[in-house]
């Protein structure tokens, strides 16, 4: 039986190859898409997780702007003092108030637009972000409003392509005012993380920023490190209680745990994977229609052969099987080749984007199962048509 299949498929090599190609592309894209979706998810998740699941962020809500008044953050009550207040919560280990502003950093003839992050010495441990070289600023620096800063790895690389930035003096320029700062450290590389690009920032004492640069004691948000990972919910409750005494409207602030963000990322990823996989599945369906098309042509062409086989004693099911075998053979061959191709494409994309190569086993079963099913479904109709042919008519066919 298989020999008959191979014989008739090899009689039309180009035609068979094109049918196989249709399925191959479909299966390959299903595999590649699912793998890319999974890889990207894993990447984003691992970066979010690198901050630690026990990180809690307290941020002010946005006030809706109306009638020419721009939307603003509700920051009046978000002050450096509130940070001390929040750190009294028993389930909270550290609180880092963050003032975020923009400025230009200049060294000799180079300058760079960057984000200035006013933080406290606890910051590296709170967001899991250690110093690579030099040191982070100390409590002493904080108390003395020291004009020291630590560069994100990207900033260091761009501003000092072939020099050691440690100990160098740079100019910070914000709103027309210039300040002279000394570089005391360079952070490790953390990579892109959602909306926060840690590597493109500059870190300086929050007190220095408040007093010398912005002249304002309000902060943008607080990063909180929970005492232990299983106390996240407790910490949130305590923080919300403290905030409720200061801020009457609970809509005015948001307390979010890193865990929630991870869950959101996961959910988005599932949606993305299914979307990509779904689009790829359509390609597979089109491949199936290709098989059916070719098989229908083949049935007509081989009407006489079918007549001969029937005259020699082939039953309904013999003819049905013959054509169904061809269709399933083509689709399965396409499926296996598409699997290899899909893994190859996924590996290529993964290596370019430096994602991990993840091919879930369900994707393999899905792709192979789907290609087999496509072969069966789109093979049945042409095969049944062949099997139903009247032997007398079929023998007469020229």
């Amino acid at each position, binding site marked *: 039986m298989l*020999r*008959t299949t191979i*014989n*008739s498929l090899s*009689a039309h090599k180009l035609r068979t190859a094109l049918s196989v190609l249709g399925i191959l592309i479909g299966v390959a894209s299903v595999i590649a898409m699912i793998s890319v979706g999974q890889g990207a998810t894993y990447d984003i998740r691992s970066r979010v997780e690198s901050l630690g699941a026990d990180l809690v962020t307290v941020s002010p809500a946005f006030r809706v702007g109306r009638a020419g008044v721009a939307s603003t953050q509700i920051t009046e009550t978000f002050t450096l003092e509130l940070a001390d207040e929040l750190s009294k919560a028993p389930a909270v280990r550290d609180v880092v108030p963050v003032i975020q502003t923009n400025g230009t950093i200049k060294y000799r003839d180079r300058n760079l637009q960057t984000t200035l992050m006013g933080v406290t010495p606890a910051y590296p441990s709170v967001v899991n972000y250690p110093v690579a070289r030099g040191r982070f600023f100390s409590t002493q620096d904080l108390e003395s409003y020291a004009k020291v800063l630590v560069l994100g790895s990207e900033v260091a690389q761009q501003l000092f392509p072939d020099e050691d930035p440690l100990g160098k003096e740079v100019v910070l320029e914000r709103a027309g005012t210039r300040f002279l700062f000394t570089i005391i450290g360079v952070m490790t590389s953390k990579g892109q993380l959602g909306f926060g690009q840690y590597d493109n920032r500059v870190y300086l004492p929050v007190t220095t920023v408040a007093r010398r640069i912005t002249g304002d004691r309000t902060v943008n948000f607080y990063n909180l490190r929970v005492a232990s990972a299983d106390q996240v919910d407790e910490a949130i409750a305590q923080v919300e209680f403290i905030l409720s005494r200061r801020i009457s409207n609970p809509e005015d602030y948001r307390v979010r745990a890193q865990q929630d963000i991870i869950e959101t990322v996961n959910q988005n990823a599932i949606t993305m994977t299914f979307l990509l996989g779904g689009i790829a599945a359509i390609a597979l369906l089109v491949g199936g229609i290709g098989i059916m098309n070719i098989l229908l042509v083949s049935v007509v062409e081989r009407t*006489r*052969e079918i*007549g*001969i*086989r*029937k*005259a*020699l*004693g*082939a*039953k*309904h099911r*013999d003819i049905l099987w013959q054509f169904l075998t061809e269709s399933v053979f083509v689709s399965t061959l396409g499926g296996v080749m598409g699997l290899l191709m899909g893994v190859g494409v996924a590996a290529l994309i993964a290596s370019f984007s430096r994602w991990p190569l993840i091919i879930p086993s369900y994707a393999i079963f899905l792709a192979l199962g789907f290609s087999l099913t496509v072969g069966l479904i789109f093979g049945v109709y042409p095969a049944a048509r062949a099997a139903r042919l009247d*032997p*007398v008519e079929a*023998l007469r066919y020229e």
Partner: protein
Amino acid sequence: MSPLRPLASQDGETMGELFHLEDVTKVYKMDEVEVRALDGVSFAIQRGEFLAIMGPSGSGKSTVMHLLGCLDRPTSGRMVLDGLDLLKASDNQLAEIRNAKIGFVFQQFNLLPRENALRNVETPAIYAGARRAERVRRAKELLERVGLGDRLFHFPSQLSGGERQRVAIARALMNDPAILLADEPTGNLDTKTGEEILALFQHLHDEGRTVVLVTHDQRVASYASRILHMQDGRILRDERVN
């Protein structure tokens, strides 16, 4: 039980009635118009007979061939092969009967173009479910008997007309059928090759096989021992020759 009976051992089956047709009609419906291809045909074929069915085109001889070959069922009448009522047989039963009892030889040879000579001869045994070793051995034996022992692996396109028809005859004999049914077997051959093929049928008849030739050619029919003359869907004359 092997589906392949040994060759040339027809003892005990060489006598008696093989085919019985009684008042058989066949009506084709073509766009509201009824065509009466057979109009009350009755005859019987005995085992071991060499019968020719003769007539011009449109006489109904092709329809008779299709009915004898179990490719089609009559519209009405009675038709029995080897004790089996063909009017009541299902499509799959007819396929089984064709496989086991009928050996076809066609004017167009009708070999499977993508299979070699050996595979072509094997095909009826494949549908009968015979084991591979057994059917290959038998197919080789049959090809040797028709003089093609050195052409086993040639494809139809590599064979001459006469050789193709010999392959077709070997294939017809594969499942040791009760009847050899040949439709204008020399129609596409030159005179000399045609005579060789007819001599082969003669030889098979001498071995005890039942042979039915359908032809419009008097010279071909003259090989038979009985000639049925047909015209307008009826039997005109049933002639015994010696």
